């Protein structure tokens, strides 16, 4: 592990996305070694143990949920959605960066995506897995969740296609499927590398199976590139569609604070914002622990910070417009909703949200702070918290005081809500730890195209998987 840079180096705009001095061999060695040679490291073991313990907490919480009923959560009437949907939207939002980095940046030929796309995609998948738990677990009768799918059945019943929840089912399941395909297809050449370099029989067998007979022939590469590009094209609309449809869960309803036309772009921006914050939260410690500063350079961090700043401003604009429209609509209920956010019983959370999502990220205007890993890490954590608060404000604070004051109520998560939330973090982290231990967290073959040699003598070396 190389020591962290003590002071930000002078990063020029055109600094390369890979530190100088790397060859094809050194790239493959460096990334492959994390999986093949380093074995189980102590830090990894401690981290995985904690994450796995939290995953067991999730199992316990969910078992108890099914055994006792969702009454163990804090939801009630009027606040019938609480932590469940807050966390669902939060996790789905986090899952956005992966696809954006993989697909859109690929199509836009943003080369800097190369070193972060693999684990950003993995993170997406794991976040979607976490998110997927909530819509099922929050049902009164989760064992009947399959009724949301349109399948031929003896009841002669179809789902209600007017309901955004049905759209959600399609949006999220499509997103999960395509994200997985994209991630897995991208892994194939690297899996072949691992197969070839693995010294254990088991390793060779498993990586060999997963590599699906990849030999690195020109034909393979040709088909691979086509498939990858097609998948990128498929994924691109999904970046927009998933969170748009998630936002319809709210925008289609009549609840003041939900019923807003700005929701789709505002939610998508928020999702990318949260997603990049999470990528940064993970990348900063990872590159340090595994000594990957050469591949995930400060320029990467700088770029991601800029995306965060930009999307953060879109989100801030969203907050502004919500308030403006509440006034402009001249609707008593809308105006009350905003007043209630500002000064109601949950106002502390609202102002914390404004701090986290609007004020704190403004430090990213300063290059010095963008390149300071400590600041960046802190900001990304603050944004993650802010985005969670945003969903809490939208869902809980809108519901708790809607139309008839007689029905107004209060909501607070119970320990079971928290256990489930922390438990999904355990699931997320467990999967992530397994991922960095057993799969190359940076795309080896793509990194090799970044090595200066690749530019010089592209034809002679391209596509070789040694």
């Amino acid at each position, binding site marked *: 592990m190389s020591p962290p840079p003590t002071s930000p180096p002078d990063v020029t705009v055109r600094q390369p996305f890979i530190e100088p001095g790397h060859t094809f061999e050194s790239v493959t060695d460096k990334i492959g070694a994390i999986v093949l040679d380093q074995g189980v490291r102590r830090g990894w073991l401690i981290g995985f143990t904690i994450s796995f313990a939290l995953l067991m907490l999730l199992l316990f919480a969910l078992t108890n949920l099914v055994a*006792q*009923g*969702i*009454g163990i959560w*804090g*939801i*009630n*009437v*009027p*606040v*019938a*959605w609480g932590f469940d949907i807050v966390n669902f939207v939060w996790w789905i939002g986090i899952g956005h960066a992966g696809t954006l980095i993989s697909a859109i940046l690929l199509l836009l030929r943003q080369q800097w995506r190369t070193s972060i796309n693999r684990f950003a995609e993995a993170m997406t998948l794991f976040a979607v897995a976490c998110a997927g738990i909530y819509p099922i677990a*929050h*049902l*009164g*009768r*989760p064992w*009947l*969740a399959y*009724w*949301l799918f349109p399948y031929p059945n003896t009841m002669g*019943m*179809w*789902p*209600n296609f*007017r*309901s*955004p*929840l*049905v759209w959600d*089912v399609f949006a999220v399941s499509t997103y999960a499927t395509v994200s997985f395909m994209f991630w897995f297809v991208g892994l194939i050449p690297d899996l072949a590398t691992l197969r070839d370099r693995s010294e254990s029989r088991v390793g060779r067998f498993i990586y060999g199976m997963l590599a699906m007979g990849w030999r690195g022939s020109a034909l393979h590469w040709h088909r691979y590139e086509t498939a990858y590009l097609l998948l990128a094209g498929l994924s691109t609309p999904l970046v927009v569609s998933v969170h748009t449809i998630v936002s319809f*869960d709210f925008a*289609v*309803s*009549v*609840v003041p604070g939900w019923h807003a036309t700005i929701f789709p772009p505002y939610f998508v921006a928020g999702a990318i914002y949260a997603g990049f914050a999470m990528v940064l939260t993970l990348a900063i410690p990872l590159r340090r622990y595994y000594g990957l500063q050469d591949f995930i350079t400060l320029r990467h961090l700088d770029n991601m910070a800029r995306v965060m700043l930009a999307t953060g401003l879109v989100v801030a604009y969203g907050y502004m417009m919500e308030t403006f429209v509440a006034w402009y609509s001249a609707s*008593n*209920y809308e105006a*009350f909703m905003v007043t209630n956010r500002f000064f109601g019983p949950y106002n502390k959370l609202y102002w914390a949200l404004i701090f986290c999502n609007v004020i704190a990220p403004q430090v990213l205007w300063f290059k010095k702070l963008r390149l300071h890993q400590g600041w960046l890490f802190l900001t990304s954590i603050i944004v993650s918290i802010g985005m969670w608060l945003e969903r809490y404000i939208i869902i809980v604070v809108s*519901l708790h*005081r*809607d*139309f*008839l*004051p*007689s*029905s*107004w*109520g*209060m909501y607070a998560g119970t320990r079971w809500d928290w256990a489930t939330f922390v438990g999904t973090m355990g699931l997320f982290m467990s999967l992530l730890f397994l991922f960095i231990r057993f799969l190359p967290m940076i795309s080896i073959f793509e990194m090799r195209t970044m090595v200066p040699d690749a530019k010089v003598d592209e034809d002679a070396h391209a596509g070789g998987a040694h």
Partner: protein
Amino acid sequence: MSDPTNPTTPTPALDLEQVRTELASARGRHYWRSLDELANRPGFDALMAREFPRQAPGLLDAVDRRQFMQLMGASLALAGLSACTRQPAETIMPYVKAPEDIIPGRPLYFATAMPIGGIGTGLLVESHMGRPTKIEGNPDHPSSLGATDAFAQASVLGLYDPDRSQVISSAGEIRPWSAFTAALDQALAAQTASGGAGLRILTDNITSPTLAGQIAALLTKYPNSHWHQWDPIARDSARLGARMALGVDADVRYRFVDADVVVALDADFLGSGPAQVRNLRDFSVRRKPGGSMNRLYAVESSPTVTGARADHRMAVKASAVEFFAWALAGQLGVAPQKPKNVPPEYAKWIAALAKDLMAHRGRSIVVPGDHQSPGVHALAHALNIALGNVGKTVICTEPVAAQPVYSMASLKELVAAMAAGQVDVLLMLGTNPVATAPADLDFAARLEKVGFRAHLGLYDDETAQLCHWHIPEAHYLESWGDVRSEEGTISIIQPLIAPLYDGKSVLEVMAAANGRPQSGYDLVRAFWGDKRKAAGDFDRWWRTTLHDGLIPDTALAPKAIGVRSNWIDTIIQNHDGKQDDTEGLELVYRLDSGVLDGRFANNGWLQEAPRPITKLTWDNAALISPATARRLKLQNEDVVELTHRGRKLEVPVWIVPGNADDSITLALGYGRKRAGRVGDGVGVDANLIRTSDAAWIAAGVTLAKTPRTYPLATTQEHHSMEGRHLVREATLAEYTHEPAFARELVEEPAKDMTMYPPHPYEGAAWGMTIDLASCVGCNACVIACNAENNIPVVGKEQVAAGREMQWIRIDRYFEGEETNPTIVHQPVPCMQCENAPCEVVCPVNATVHSSEGLNDMVYNRCVGTKYCSNNCPYKVRRFNFFKYQDWTTESLKLARNPDVTVRSYGVMEKCTYCVQRISQARIVSRREDRDVRDGEVVTACAQACPAGSIVFGDLNDPESRVAKTKADARNYSLLGDLNTRPRTTYLASVRNPNPELES
């Protein structure tokens, strides 16, 4: 297998009896193993030979395998069969001749009456295959007129309460009835010599002629014995007030139909008392702004439903009401002298009020509150006489009680006699004095001195625990009896079901005490047979009476009254020129609108029904005004220690706008120790601090704040309408000027502003209106809905978590200044929107629109996303967060309406407009090849409503009542601006304030 023919093999004897016992003790799989073992046992073949000689030779011969198996199988089977234990002979029989009128699946209705505190309300009870499930009012009965109060609605749950006392017990042992009668005979035999000097009977208020006859017989047999009556809900002040002003006992009834001006002197005549249903029905007739609307003035300490409905309400301390009444009497010249120092805020009110009363002589009523002082009652009598109301709007009659007593004095006499050791035998019938007597009487300790203590009660309660004998009382739905209503009409109480637990009625116990134990049926029939001897054809009369639910022309006749001389002297002495009793805090005890005096403490429906003004459930609290709370630095749920004459009580505080300052109101009936699993330990027992001389209003109470808080469960946390036009209200003048004022307030989207053609509703289109001008928020509809729709009780914690399940709730808002707010009530069932927001968002089509415009909820299909609830602007949907329904208690299963699905965990539910009743009516109408008639479908809430505020019917029928109420100018939609187009709409409230007091 041993060879039975071989004599050298000793074969142990095996006989059929032995086999039988052996097999009888084996069960299931073990049974079949026993059979195998048996077949291999030595001696089996001998047995076979003995039992089945014809098959035996085959066994003895060498047999082939196949034949052997056949024989063996048959033999084993036969042996097994004959080994079965014989069942006791219980003959079951199909209906060879079906009982008349019973059609499975169709309910029958029987007339009966429910006594509370000895006063009956005529009822019709719905019975499904022999089990009563739903109470309705008897339209022919003068104290019901087809409606009921919440207590009657909830009594069906009381019948099936699994915590009811189920066995006769003595010293913790279960004993037979004969053992009790023997013990009673023995105890009474010892009293014969002294003429019953040591014999006392304690009952609640008794109006039953048959029972009165039984008691009279006992009193004749033991001339020195005493009959005491203690009824915690007895109207002692009314009794004493009548004696004070008139010098005689008299009961008072009011004809609100004929009254233009009503003055309530701390009287909650619309929300409590035996005449509440009739009062509310009569009163509501005069709250229609189209007709001649009455005007109600209320002077009260803590807001009641009556005060909330009043056109003018003034909050004064309960102890100041007498002074107020005196000042009013002085103003009208009824009292010989006026009080001095009348505060200016009273003076203005009283001047206007007196003027209004004088303008409506003979068409006004002054109603004194039951818990007010006798002086207030005396003043009310004098005022009503002076205003010429008596005989017109105020009817005085002989008391309806068989023997009118001053209940508290009667109890005190008994306690004194017990303390003096003069009581040897005490029969406490249908009363629970240990829990209900004020603390200073120390009833429990004095009771210990009685040699023979027997208690008859529905529950094994606080009193039962201290008695030698406890006998379970038969519920009124399972016993024979008779009872008089508050205006005297006699009803025969006929049982709907045989006693579930071998309970006995008071009548049957009295008959046993008289030495002639008989069934209730025989007793009642014999009494009335005797009475009707001269009229002849008793059977016919009996059947008619039972069918109609009342004996006609038994209402008490009006009686002439006049004021005594010097009646006002005591009042003047009492006050000595002072406005009220004390400068400090007063404590007012009130009967609870849920549990009354505690007798309904174990009834979950009533415990969970939000109290009309406070919206509290599952607890009582010290109600105080906002100003008093500020002065004493108190907040809701703070626990305070109340001290009165050295007795202390810790109780949580609840702040009620409109409460009089320096007045604390505390409901009786809580803090029960042996009420049952539901009622034990709910709230605090006000009787621990209450004294018999200050039974309703205690002056000189001190209050100390403690550092503790106690969580209270309320169903409504927010009390302001936030400037939204939810309950729309106008004065009569404004209404006359603009009858459609309610619709002017909010602009609703035009119905044709849509791309889609309007949905045609062919056939029926169900709709409902709720008249907010007459609704007082009494909870009858809430409990009726509970009973009709199998709605579970969720308990205090779940209510506090916001998960109550009632399908119809009554919203209550305070508007205006907190010292004297306007209080409005608004019942909110499902609105059955035509553009229902819930329907669009359900992903599985579990809530869909019916062809008749109902918003149907399909429980089977619901997966529980709760999205519909979030999207319901009215928040009328209720979710089963847990398995709330009790699926295991057998007796509760009997209580359920078989026409309504019992919902389980994880599904949404809500008001259905009683779709089961609609279906029933549709089936009947189709069989008769006609449309459903108007009034044929009545929802449970509409049926129970004493004010007749809820009207339901077919909107497509222009002649239907609901079509007419919808056409009323006052009709408006709640949140109509959302374009939900609710089928349930409201008729705006109108009040009729006195222009002179409008400032």
